[in-house]
């Protein structure tokens, strides 16, 4: 429910702030999507619904074919989920992997980020890492 509310607010707030904040909003949405799929070994339908809604909003916002992530991108992510959750690493490493994956995805979606990168603008994104860890500790793999 928390994620759904957050997704809703992120969706309506996108476009009303500066360039870097908009990118941070996208990064948060991507992070939520990855977290929903990678947080547990067994994929729950609720998590999949959250992933669908998250990717749907991202697709609407950045104008890519609708439902492509829910159908195509999900397969490698599920395979990666299998690898990640069978390695029994510490939660912090899982969070870091999700965070890095989100950043890579965002950079692939918007390559201008790499050329116009300013650390001070994206320092706030470290908050995402903290929240992902909090999410992992409360709702992570059983």
């Amino acid at each position, binding site marked *: 429910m928390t994620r759904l509310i957050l997704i809703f607010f992120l969706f309506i707030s996108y476009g009303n702030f500066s360039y870097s904040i908009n990118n941070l909003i996208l990064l948060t949405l991507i992070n939520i999507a990855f977290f929903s799929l990678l947080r547990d070994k067994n994929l729950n*339908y609720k998590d999949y619904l959250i992933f669908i809604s998250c990717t749907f909003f991202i697709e609407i916002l950045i104008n890519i074919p*609708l*439902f492509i992530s829910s*159908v195509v991108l999900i397969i490698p992510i599920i395979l990666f*989920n*299998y690898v990640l959750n069978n390695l029994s690493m510490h939660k912090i490493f899982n969070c870091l992997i999700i965070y890095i994956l989100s950043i890579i995805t965002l950079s692939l979606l918007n390559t201008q980020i790499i050329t116009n990168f300013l650390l001070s603008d994206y320092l706030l994104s470290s908050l995402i890492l903290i929240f992902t860890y909090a999410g992992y500790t409360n709702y992570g793999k059983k």
Partner: protein
Amino acid sequence: MINNKKVFILYIVCFFLFVTFFIFPNLSNNTRLYSFYLKEKIQEPFFYINLNITNSFHIFKEKKDLLKENEELLKRNEFLKNINNYLRLLTTKYNDQYKVFHNTDIPIPKSIGVKVIGDRNLTFNKSFIINKGSKNGIEVSNYVIDGNEIIGRVKTVYSQSADVVTVKSLDYGEEVIINGRSYIVTGTNNDYLSFLRKKNSAQEYSFSKDQIAIVKNNSLNLILGKINFKDNQPIIYTKYNFDLDNLRVVLND
């Protein structure tokens, strides 16, 4: 890995939706447009709240700026009033010329220039003698000024000279106005004047340093000195050395 029927059904639904949107791009565009329309509608109350908050903040900031500006203007006004006083005093020099052209006296207090004769160093009794007296219109209690600062008051008048007691003298007493309230002060034979206090009086002074003590003389405001503190007691500091070269006596109308 996936042992959930619901997930699989959801995947199939998504798959068909994806295929439909992919084959019919118009449908995809409509969905996108409708989503943005909804997004805009949902944003409206947030925009309204944001606008109100921004407006309130702007009004608050503007009010603060205006208050600051007002304070500065008041200070500037006070400064200009002082300059005006000073210029009016200077204008009294031209009384004779004014009389030639208008056949009347200048409509502000008259003053005459005087020279100090006798003890200029104010060594013993903090008073001096000036070279003009009753023949020139000087009367007892006339103010002796330098610019618009009070140097002293005429104590005794002779026909050709007058005795002036300076503000530093123990014999000097005055009613001054500070912040619109009047107080009685007296000289101390030092460089400052002290406030007179009634016996057993619990009167508290609420002064701040460098406030100007003025004396009202007809329409002129003359400066006596500035507020300072000595042993936590308020005093009025006067100049350490008086310039006795350009003295004038303000005459009564």
